[in-house]
């Protein structure tokens, strides 16, 4: 099972990339921990995650081919 992770704005800076394919993440809590381990700079940034363009506030189970976006605080306008 793979998910595709997209990094935006300052999160792309912190991860040094704009996307990443990961294997075996079962839910968003576990994915968050793996991302923080891989890219410690994400810690100070703070971010929400969107699964298939829907922001998830609580733990969500991930499915194969899901697209997970790492969304630091927005700063449009």
């Amino acid at each position: 099972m793979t998910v595709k992770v997209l990094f935006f704005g300052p999160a792309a800076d912190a991860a040094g990339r704009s996307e990443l394919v990961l294997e075996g993440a079962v839910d968003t809590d576990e994915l968050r921990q793996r991302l923080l381990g891989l890219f410690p700079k994400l810690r100070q940034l703070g971010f929400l995650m969107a699964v298939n363009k829907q922001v998830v506030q609580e733990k969500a189970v991930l499915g194969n081919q899901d697209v997970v976006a790492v969304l630091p605080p927005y700063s449009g306008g």
Partner: protein
Amino acid sequence: MQGPVSPAFIAESIAKHSVKTNIGAHDIFLGQVRNDVINGKEVKAIAYSAYEEMADEAVYRIREDAFEKYDLTCMHIYHSLGLVRAGEISLFVFVSSAHRGAAFDACREIVERIKKEVPVWGKEIFEDESYSWKQNKEAI
């Protein structure tokens, strides 16, 4: 839209509404890039990026909600992507209604929601080409 919103584009948008003679009031919000000084360095431009598909959905939802809640004739929302220099316009919200109350209320609510709900990020670029990420006052 790519790059800044031009005054000519705004004028064209206004002119197009002259055929809608049931409109009595327009409220237009324009966000302009400020040359803020951050740690002693002056912002000369902001480069905007977005999660575009999600941003489109968020703007669509904001539009629908506003039409549902307020008695509006029409509404247009444009946010720049890419480079916008200090003094140029990066956000254009244009709300029209028969009477002014609805246009005022809706325009303000739409702007607040855009800032909160639309996944856009601004990278503030300084004179020496270094940058920092913009922080909105009401972040998530």
